[in-house]
């Protein structure tokens, strides 16, 4: 629907390609027909073409730059040096890690950003976990815990009442020393 309402939109890519000089011949004639009829697209095309003109004619700004013979020789020597077999360099694991660190990790900002993001996530998780524990304390014990506590209190109360009440059913055992021998009976008598 959006495409239908904005019919010029589908020509915009072609206009950019036209300004870039890479539009194919059949497309070019189609776009030129549209340009003849549409003032907005004509204006857009002029803007893009004028904007890209300094880029298209970039080499005119550097016409004076020519590599001299010394530079050409230097480049040729660099290539020849690269062509020679390099001396075998024994790299220890630590040296390899150092080179990898220096060439890959250190210059890449995205890796540092990623590491920082990981640390932030760890910190956030830690803080959120710490904040949960006081909340549990503040909310108080659950209903189940209260029920079990009440049960325990009942049991304790029963035990206490049992201990304090007199035991009528059980007769009190009185101490009656028995004579161990006959002689002892006589003695007691």
């Amino acid at each position: 629907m959006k495409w239908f309402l904005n019919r010029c939109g589908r020509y915009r890519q072609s206009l950019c390609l036209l300004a870039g000089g890479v539009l194919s011949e059949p497309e070019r004639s189609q776009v030129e027909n549209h340009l003849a009829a549409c003032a907005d697209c004509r204006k857009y095309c002029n803007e893009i073409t004028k904007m890209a003109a300094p880029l298209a004619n970039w080499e005119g700004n550097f016409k004076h730059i020519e590599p001299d013979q010394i530079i050409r020789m230097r480049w040729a020597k660099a290539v020849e040096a690269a062509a020679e077999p390099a001396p075998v360099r024994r790299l220890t694991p630590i040296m390899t890690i150092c080179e990898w660190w220096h060439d890959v990790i250190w210059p890449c900002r995205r890796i540092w950003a990623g590491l920082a993001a990981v640390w932030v996530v760890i910190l956030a998780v830690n803080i959120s976990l710490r904040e949960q524990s006081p909340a549990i304390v503040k909310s108080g014990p659950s209903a189940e815990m209260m029920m079990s506590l009440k049960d325990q209190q009942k049991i304790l109360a029963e035990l206490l009442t049992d201990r304090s009440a007199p035991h009528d059913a059980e007769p009190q055992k009185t101490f009656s020393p028995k004579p161990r021998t006959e002689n002892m009976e006589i003695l007691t008598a």
Partner: protein
Amino acid sequence: MVITDDHVETSAAPELLSRARAGETRAFCLLIESLQTRLLRQATALAGDVSTAEDLVSETLVEAWKSLPRYNETCRFSTWLYAILLHRHQKSVRRARSRPVSLAGLPFSETEELHDRHDNIAATEISPAEAATQHELFIELRQCVEELPSKHRQVVLLRFFEDASLPDMAAVLGCSVGTVKSRLHHALEKLRKMKMNLPDLKGDTQI
């Protein structure tokens, strides 16, 4: 967008290429000889000053020599070289960002390069004032290109600095022609918007 030094696509080029692939550095040097001027200009346009550009070209040629077995001829040799140049430039920019900034390393500053250019303006056909204006416009637009996302910047640089065709760009970037078209469209659209926001250039866009 006229290719002035692109004589590589001649009849001798395939033979030189095969000899270079066989390990003959002399053949490689002959192969790149006609491309060196353009490559240096491209590097200067990227880096901003000639001495950095010379080093950049040297690195590019060494890299090209090492990667020559991987060149599969799906694009022009000059486009392939330019893709390596772009890659080397990006790498050097990334390294420079991690180091302290020096004034000499700033791209397109009013350094000796610009003064050299003004000295050489007399040698060109256009008037010095016109040439200076053109150069300023180019520098402003180049800075806008630097602000583009990498995938858009690559397409713009390949198209305008290397005059690469759509299939060549697709081969170098490893994507489809449709993707290249889309990226070029978005890149130019972004550049147009960026340039319209520049206060001193607003008058240029009002047609």
